[in-house]
């Protein structure tokens, strides 16, 4: 009897320990995210105190001067950074877990390049307004994802094939982007460049609202789907044996992350590396119990931090995507090196 109960209690207490760690880490991540969110609205050419920011942003007081600075000038950018970060973090970690490869980020797999192609062509070829540009970026992301999914389909999706076909499609898109930028006016080419790097400052209110709505709807869905996701991670055969409807769950999860990436790209353009690094960092901090929420929060922290750096610490303002790219680079090389040492890279 004791021989049976002892391992059982050990498993139970281990599980409780993991759950506690995940809860503590996730709530502290939420705290840090909120602090950074407030901080980005405090600093700038006109300093606003933390209390004033909170009171104004949540409409607790009315002070026209502070309201103008906080609500009209800084809140859109801060909210964009927050929501784009969460969306990218969640989508990235879902992708990585689905394809079983920590390097499978939507940045590399061609989804972002599809968004860039559509946005750039709507700027250069159709002189589109900002709403249309964002809409076509969204359309581009969704279409590209669909194309990659269909091309990679052969009795199911293998992570290996999905990634390689994604890279091929990405090269295809980028060669057309290069052509369009070369035949554009210099002014338009410059505007189009922002859709190749991505920045949170350019967010329009309409797109931002759409992204927020999408997050409110999809974040709970992602948390519900987390359980099937964990089963899928065990491999298709095991998942099937455990009674999981493999293809359906996978399709739902891919659709969810593509929609999140699409909306985020429509708001800010392709912000590199966030989707790639948020998941692994969250996993490292929160342990195996850390889920999509933790990854989303890490993503938000990265984008908010990058926005702070690009907006206030540098002599010339650079797009947020450049900062995340430069932060992400050393991490990525380290990841490639260690992942390969463990022999899981291929």
């Amino acid at each position, binding site marked *: 009897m004791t021989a049976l109960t002892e391992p059982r209690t050990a498993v139970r207490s281990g599980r409780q320990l993991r759950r506690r760690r995940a809860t503590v880490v996730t709530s502290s991540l939420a705290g840090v995210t909120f602090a950074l969110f407030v901080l980005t609205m405090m600093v700038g050419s006109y300093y606003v105190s933390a209390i004033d920011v909170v009171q104004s942003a949540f409409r607790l007081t009315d002070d026209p001067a502070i309201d103008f600075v906080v609500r009209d000038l800084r809140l859109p950018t801060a909210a964009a950074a927050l929501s784009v970060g969460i969306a990218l973090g969640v989508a990235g970690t879902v992708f990585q877990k689905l394809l079983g*490869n920590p*390097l499978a980020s939507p*940045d*590399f797999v061609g989804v972002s390049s599809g968004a860039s192609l559509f946005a750039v062509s709507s700027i250069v070829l159709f002189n589109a307004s900002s709403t249309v540009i964002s809409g076509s970026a969204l359309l581009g992301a969704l279409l590209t994802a669909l194309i990659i999914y269909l*091309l*990679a389909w*052969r009795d199911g999706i293998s992570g*290996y*094939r999905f*990634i*390689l*076909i994604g*890279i*091929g*499609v*990405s*090269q*295809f898109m*980028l*060669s*057309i982007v*290069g*052509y369009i*930028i*070369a035949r554009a006016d*210099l002014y338009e*080419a*410059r505007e189009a*460049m*922002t859709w*190749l*790097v991505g920045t949170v400052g350019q967010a329009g209110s309409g797109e931002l609202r759409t992204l927020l709505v999408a997050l409110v709807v999809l974040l709970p869905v992602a948390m519900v789907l987390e359980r099937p996701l964990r089963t899928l991670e065990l491999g298709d055969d095991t998942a099937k044996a455990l009674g999981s409807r493999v293809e359906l769950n996978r399709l739902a999860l891919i659709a969810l992350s593509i929609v999140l990436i699409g909306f985020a790209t429509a708001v800010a353009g392709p912000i*590199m*590396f966030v989707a790639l690094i948020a998941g692994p960092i969250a996993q490292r901090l929160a342990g195996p119990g850390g889920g999509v929420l933790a990854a989303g929060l890490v993503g938000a922290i990265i984008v908010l931090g990058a926005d702070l750096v690009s907006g206030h610490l540098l002599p*010339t303002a*650079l*797009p947020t*995507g*450049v900062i*995340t*790219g*430069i932060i*992400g*680079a050393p991490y*990525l*090389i380290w990841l*490639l*090196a260690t*992942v*390969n*040492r*463990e*022999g899981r*890279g*291929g």
Partner: protein
Amino acid sequence: MTLIQPSPVAVETAPQHRSRAVLATGFVLLLGLLAAVCFFSITLGSRGVGIPTIWKAFTDYDPSSASQTVIRELRVPRTLIGIFAGAALGISGAILQGVTRNPLADPGIMGINAGAAAFIVFGIMVLGAQDVSTYVWFAFAGAGVATVTVYGIASFGREGATPVKLALAGAAVTAILTSITSAIVMTNVEALNQLRFWQVGSLAGRYFPVFWQTVPFLAIGLVVALGTGRALNGLALGEDLALALGQRVRLTRVVMFVTVAVLCGAATAACGPIVFVGLIVPHIARMICGPDYRWILSYSLLLTPILLLAADIVGRLAVAPGELQVGVVLGVLGAPAFILLVRYRNLAEL
């Protein structure tokens, strides 16, 4: 350099051996085809010229004739650069695939183009490089740095450089370099203006100075590359067997990588980033000639320029009087071929 495992690509159809006479005949036929493509590359375009004009342009040059000037100053250097750069891309693709034993190794996918672009932007911004002939050196350096970095990152670990790892390392390094390039370009309009024309990959506007600058590297690189066939055949048997056969494996690898970096660097410097040809052509060559690298290299040497010049002609005629750059044509046509390659992996195991 760790032991490289055979790639996970399965053999479904083994390429058949053909007799030496058949292959030699094919080689001569390809030479004829290349000559034909060169002829069309000189005659076709927004200004069509006849054979008499071409003859005159070389024997009895009249500088006041626009047609003759177009031939001598535009079409001939363009065609020559197409031949040499094409040969360089094809042969370095074949060597890369052989030395990494990886069916998906390609200069574009391995981030070499992004490396060259990043260094060119740096050259424009910091040192005020003004035209293609100054870019060349930066493109060289960038291509070399990128090759070494990507292969170095991908070959960490016990599996060595598998196709997925190389492709991902290439995509990752490309992403890093692109974000640095864009950071510079966003703050420097002049750099953007020059980069965007280089970046599409084109044979247009490449005059004789560019040719003379890159041709020594290309010619030497091609000669060395053609001599690596025997060593590649040895490596294809596996590192241990190659060692047992008395090859100096490490040395030949280094020589091959240096050759590839020189060839890709010079080709990229001359025409900008051109993706997919270096990937596809060696596979076509392998389908025709079987597994002997001496033949694969010789066929790639002719097939790639044919393809490159044909794509260039298509780009010239498709939207005349405008022009589709050859990089765009090949990017658009090459992607489906790449995807087919990934989907139906009935490629020879390397």
